[in-house]
């Protein structure tokens, strides 16, 4: 048990947990907005890749880092727009369209990368976001090193959690978004556009997903690799359920997953000779499934999730 305590009591462990959680926070918030508006967005995995490529490529071609973040968001938003067109306007299957978006965005990203850089031998690098150090705050024991080893995008992610919670629960727009995913007829009766709200939510949510990808190539690492998203988008889809579609719990879920992963990496390195490494690699996913089982009983799905809306239609 000493090993476990040593790991959990180190600031570097928590710093790693937050770092691993950051792309998931973006992703889970994005998925949450889409689903709150009634649209499942399985394009998330591909949108991560698109964001990772677009943001990195923009910086590689000379844009500033925040310019890259913006371009990643726009790229994600465009794929979101396509998903919204197919699922909201045409009312097609959200599952099929989402998987299609993932395949399309993944291939299109690599296609763009290879077209722009046909002859590279090692992936070119950019100067990524650097950790923010705030004099005074960084020196606080434990919290300082855990929080201030982080890059600006991590703080953006944390800020977005609060901002999204505020908008969802404290503004008329948030009420409309929640209503459009629960009971679109009521929104229609209010004289608001169900289609407009849903399209907007999917585009915005997809833009956030892309930031999760951009974090990988612009903060966590400094180059774009095919396949580097490695399932992170899919984890977000599970985390949304774990979070019961609430931003605060989404943050908690992402941090929990980050902590599991940081924990398994350390445990594997320290007691790897006792248990096969694959057991540790399984751990974050296994624990996520257990957590899902525990919370899923009380899961409160947006009532109109997966249901296309036709104007004037009665249920």
């Amino acid at each position: 048990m000493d090993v476990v305590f040593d790991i959990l009591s180190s600031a570097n462990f928590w710093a790693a947990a937050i770092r691993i959680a950051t792309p998931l926070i973006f992703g889970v918030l994005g998925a949450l907005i889409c689903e709150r508006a009634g649209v499942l967005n399985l394009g998330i995995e591909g949108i991560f890749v698109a964001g990772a490529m677009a943001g990195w490529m923009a910086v590689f071609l000379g844009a500033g880092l925040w310019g890259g973040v913006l371009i990643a968001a726009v790229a994600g938003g465009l794929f979101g727009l396509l998903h919204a067109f197919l699922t909201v306007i045409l009312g097609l299957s959200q599952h099929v369209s989402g998987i299609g978006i993932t395949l399309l965005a993944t291939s299109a990203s690599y296609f763009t990368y290879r077209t722009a850089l046909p002859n590279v031998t090692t992936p070119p690098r950019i100067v990524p976001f650097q950790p923010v150090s705030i004099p005074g705050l960084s020196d606080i024991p434990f919290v300082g090193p855990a929080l201030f080893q982080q890059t600006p995008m991590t703080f953006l992610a944390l800020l977005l959690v609060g901002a999204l919670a505020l908008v969802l629960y404290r503004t008329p727009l948030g009420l409309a978004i929640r209503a459009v995913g629960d009971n679109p007829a009521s929104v229609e009766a209010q004289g608001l556009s169900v289609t407009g709200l849903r399209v907007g939510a999917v585009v915005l949510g997809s833009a956030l997903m892309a930031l999760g990808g951009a974090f990988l190539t612009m903060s966590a690492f400094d180059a774009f690799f095919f396949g580097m998203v490695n399932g992170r988008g899919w984890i977000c889809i599970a985390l949304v359920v774990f979070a019961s579609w609430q931003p605060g719990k989404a943050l908690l879920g992402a941090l929990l997953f980050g902590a599991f992963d940081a924990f398994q990496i350390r445990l594997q390195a320290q007691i790897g000779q006792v248990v096969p490494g694959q057991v540790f690699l399984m751990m974050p996913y296994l624990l996520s499934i257990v957590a899902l089982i525990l919370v899923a009983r009380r899961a409160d799905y947006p009532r109109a999730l997966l249901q296309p809306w036709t104007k004037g239609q009665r249920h």
Partner: protein
Amino acid sequence: MTDRFLVGRRLFVSAMAAGVTLAMAGVSLAQDATRVAAIWTVPVEQQWASRLHLALVAADERGDIDYVYSENITNTDYERVMREYAEQGVELIIGEAFGVEQPARAVASEYPEVSFLMGSSLPPAEPNFATFDNFIHEPSYLTGIVAGMKTETNMIGMVGGYAIPEVNRLMNAFMAGAQSVNPDVRFSVSFINSWYDPPKAKEAAFAMVDAGADILYAERFGVSDAAKERGILAIGNVIDTAADYPGTILASALWHGEPMIEKAIEDVKAGAFTASDYGIYAFMEYGGGSVIIDETLAGPEAVAAANAKEEEILAKTFTVEIDDSEPASSQ
């Protein structure tokens, strides 16, 4: 889509080049060039694939071969692409059968006129399926000597992709080399179960630095980044990344695809290609493996020790053991 586009464009470029050559020389050179196709499951930037890709590109530029390739081919699609190239009349197909060992052998047996040279963990298959792998356990052993002498905390962190023979072999050789000069050295080993997730490899490396490692064995992209950020040293693998991480790469075990590629092309041209193991061309005696040491970082003692052992390997008075078992952290 990607692969088709690439093949198409590559063929187009090759066709243009051939056209220009024809116009200038007035003779057909294309008939002398062996038609070679490579099928990669990863992008050609990936360390392993890049070593062969670059050797093939060089052979193409010399005019020895006419080289086309497809990258990022999933294992589920691999057979189809093999068949496509075989149907097109390609003479030599190079690739990686690690995830498609049996299907790849089945396809090869249907095209006996085509020579197949595939990265594989299993033996060759008659009549036309030859195998290879990056057997650079010898230079890996030498980098182990350097690391074993340089570590001050006696703790070396190692991050690998998957625990498969190809990876295990090099890690085990490295560990044996380090232990041969420093019996107190301990290892912290972890695998990330991905070839291509640098952020994750970086996290695994950070965890090792936190646990006291002062040298990292960088089997994957991302590990040297962690070493550089934390101001410690790293051991490179397969490719030389020293220029990307100044002051960080202590030594690297390099793989050179040229000896094997040139031998294979020569064999195909001479009609002497057999279902044999081309893996030996990665051995140091054939020039397929080499070690590069940063002498300022390593110091004269470590360099001398590594050089002395290299002499022994080349003189065959010392053999580095091939151990494919999964390495684990020290107790």
